[in-house]
């Protein structure tokens, strides 16, 4: 990959990290407040989802139709047992800690002890899935 492209991907990562922090996704109390629908529910993350999904969906329509952008994995994977079990386990972990992968990495930028602990165990979990279940679907 050309150096110019890598610089742009660094900037895209930076934009992603700013989005995560500005939106409140990096604050575990806000995430758990959103997930606590039977308690003091905090709807803020619905707005994060709406903004992100809306922009990405519209943008991809335009990119695919007018710029001819093709994805190496354009066909959707089937809804199989791995997907159902994987999503179930991920949800339990997300609800337990209030971190999903992006916000956990972003909090490394503040050297939060929770992130310094969570990211290595997340890497171990990923390696286990990849090693024993060949989990490598897009």
């Amino acid at each position, binding site marked *: 990959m050309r150096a110019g*492209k*890598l610089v742009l991907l660094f900037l895209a990562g930076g934009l992603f990290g700013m989005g995560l922090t500005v939106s409140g996704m990096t604050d575990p*109390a806000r995430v758990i407040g959103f997930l606590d629908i039977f308690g003091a529910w905090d709807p803020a993350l619905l707005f994060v989802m709406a*903004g992100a999904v809306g922009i990405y969906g519209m943008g991809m329509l335009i990119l695919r139709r007018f710029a001819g*952008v093709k994805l190496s994995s354009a066909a959707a994977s089937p809804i199989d047992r791995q997907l159902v079990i994987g999503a179930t386990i991920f949800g*339990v972990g997300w609800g337990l800690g209030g971190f999903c992968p992006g916000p956990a*990495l972003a909090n490394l930028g503040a050297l939060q002890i929770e992130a310094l602990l969570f990211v290595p*165990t997340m890497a171990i979990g990923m390696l286990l899935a990849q090693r024993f279940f060949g989990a490598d679907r897009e």
Partner: protein
Amino acid sequence: MLHHYTLWHALVGGILIGLASLLATALSGKIPGISGVFGRLLVPATPDKAWRSVFLFGLIGGAALSFALWQSAALFRPMRPLLIMAIAGLLVGFGTRLGGGCTSGHGVCGVGMGAKDSIAATLIFMATAMLTVFIYNRVVL
């Protein structure tokens, strides 16, 4: 103004996440879900490690920058003991790789493109996360 969190922060932050994902998709030709970008970096045989590392370093750098700039972005209220965080990390890592995505790959990109598997995965992990918080708050707390 920027120091107090409002729903505008949620919306603007979401739009930034969408734009960043769009830019990364156009440049890499891949769906830039964070669990996939990070998980494949851990596999020695992955051929395209350069853009993955650069993207994630950018993510951490961008986060560090906005933590320094805005109080509302730097707000961090830990909710769980460290042992629970370590277990949560294991489950998040394992589950996202087995299920093929996380909140960004399935939740933002897949749902944004109307992919059925991503919509199913997102509904499942939202439901089990909500159930987990419900049980934790009543049983543990």
